């Protein structure tokens, strides 16, 4: 039943998907389709905004409105859509390069504005599309196609970044933790304001291979081993937290979303203009 309804949100005629064997993106795509089905959202009320990258091709398989835009700008496009038509459900699907690196500035400002967009970030710790170069989420020391001697940079904690910038809802799962992912997406899709769900994902062809993590199954096992439920993570001492990712719901706030604030502003403007039109320049 759910399976059939979820499939109705997918463009199955374009299967098999473009992603490599062992890539986690299909898992995230499935979870998104199930969430749309569970919420019974109408296709014409949903807009999927993608950036550029492997995960940026997810819109090819989603049978909703979509714009496949430019690398890093998905959240800025999504902001325009959501602000223009607040009743739409707007999803921004981005890779770690898209969201945390080239689009990092748009991320912090979308979170700060608390614009009602759900960002679903596939974090595979590298630029999959262009051959596995390091991104702003590649762990320090990691080998990638442009860090053959180890990544000299520190990585972002994407969820902490979104929280600090003001997101209303922040959560993390991995493609190993599918039930958790389903639950978090359900929450995010129904939560007003800016929501970010980071999904740690596998890229066995690049990140896995360069870091000798093994084949798809081993990379999945590695992923499972670095994820720690948030409650347990909080009991760990700093040293034990190194290289680990807390998963689960991380932030849940009820700050008024941008569109709500803007509607108030419009009402105030209307009132003021009626009382006394602003002086012309």
């Amino acid at each position, binding site marked *: 039943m759910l399976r059939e309804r979820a499939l109705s949100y997918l463009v199955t005629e374009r299967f098999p998907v473009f992603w490599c064997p062992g890539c986690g993106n299909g898992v995230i795509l499935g979870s998104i389709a199930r969430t749309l089905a569970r919420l019974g959202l109408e296709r014409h009320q949903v807009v999927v905004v993608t950036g550029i990258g492997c995960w940026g091709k997810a819109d090819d398989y989603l049978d909703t409105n979509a714009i496949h835009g*430019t690398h890093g700008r998905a959240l800025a496009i999504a902001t325009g859509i*959501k*602000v223009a038509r607040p009743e739409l459900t707007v999803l921004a699907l981005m890779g770690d390069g898209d969201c945390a690196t080239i689009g990092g*500035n748009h991320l912090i400002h979308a979170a700060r504005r608390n614009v009602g967009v759900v960002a679903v970030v596939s974090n595979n710790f590298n630029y999959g599309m262009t051959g596995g170069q390091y991104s702003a989420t590649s762990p320090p020391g990691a080998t990638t196609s442009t860090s053959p001697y180890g990544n000299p940079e520190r990585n972002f904690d994407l969820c902490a970044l979104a929280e600090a910038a003001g997101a209303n809802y922040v959560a993390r799962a991995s493609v190993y933790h599918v039930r958790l992912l389903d639950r978090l997406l359900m929450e995010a899709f129904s939560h007003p304001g800016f929501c970010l769900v980071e999904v740690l994902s596998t890229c066995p062809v690049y990140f896995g291979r360069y870091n000798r993590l093994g084949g798809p199954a081993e990379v999945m096992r590695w992923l499972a081993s670095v994820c720690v439920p948030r409650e347990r993570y909080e009991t760990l001492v700093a040293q034990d937290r190194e290289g680990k990712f807390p998963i689960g719901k991380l932030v849940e706030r009820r700050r008024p979303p941008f569109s709500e604030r803007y509607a108030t502003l419009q009402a105030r403007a209307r009132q003021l203009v009626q009382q006394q039109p602003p002086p*012309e320049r």
Partner: protein
Amino acid sequence: MREESRVQFMQGNAALLEGALAAGADFFAGYPITPSSEIAELASRRLPARGGIYLQMEDELASMAAVIGASLAGRLAFTATSGPGFSLMQENLGLAIMAEVPCVVINVQRSGPSTGLATRPAQADVMQARWGTHGDHSAIVLCASTVQACYRLAARAFQLAERFRHPVVLLADEVVGHMRERVVLDREEQARGARRRMPNCAPDQYRPYQPEADGVPPLAYFGSQYVFRVTGSMHDERGFPCADPENAARVIERLSRKIQDNAPEIWSWSLWGTPEPEILLVSFGAAARACRAVVEEYTQKGHSLGLLELETLWPFPAPIVRQAAARARLVVVAEMNLGQMRGEVRKAIPDRIPVLGANRFDGEPLTPGDVRRCLQESGEKSC
């Protein structure tokens, strides 16, 4: 705007905003920059009370992106900027061209490159407006020389954007943007508000990139009964990625031809002084104002001198230029740059007619004296 005050004394930037409002514009996203900031300020003041939106984005990359998003969500969306911001917008201007998203970009030009003379006028973005974004494409670029033209062309820009499903760039410059002149806020402009060509097929039949006879595909909006996808990647008529070379050639060609083949509809210009003159000035924007003064002076003295003022810079109105130069023995292109338009004029008219440039690129407005000097140095004995 109070109803009684249709005739106003107003700044060019304010008239640009009023023209946009007259066309029905209801979404602005931008990032402030001199000499365009008044447009943003006025948009923030005027839009919310009318149910419109003023969105101040984190930069011009985001501004252009938000404008595209809002247009797809059914708004008449625009932004305003100047050189450095216009450079940042090139990436998503390309997206608007490829995805075929109507929108308007106002560029109140200032002196460059880079920060240049930040508060001084120039007309040096003529070629950037044509070729600033990568890849083969066509461009619709208008240019205003008076406050009245700011008003009229701003409204026109939205009409053309929706008509061709294409971004329209409206150029002004620091002189025109900041000068104050009498302007009539013509109600008719409002009646001619920009309208989107919506699909009228059944929702499951809609193909967002299936062109009508004129090369332009109808565009729905997100939230309507039509579910559709747009993309900056090469695509088929449904908007799905498509690497077929034949399809790619067809799309690239159509994107250009929908503009080129309908160019006469886009062209607007005006002629001053002697019709089909012996000496023809060609100019646009603030520089055209200096030319008008020279035309008046010289024709009074009995010289055969005329001005072709271009309002449409791209698609370049070559036949109009050729026609205006039909009897000319000298053509002078007056512009506040090193001669960007001169090359286009050169290409448009027979080789035997010399084409000189009256140019200014020091951050100062081009003056009648600059044009006069060029005429005198041309060896034209009559001047």
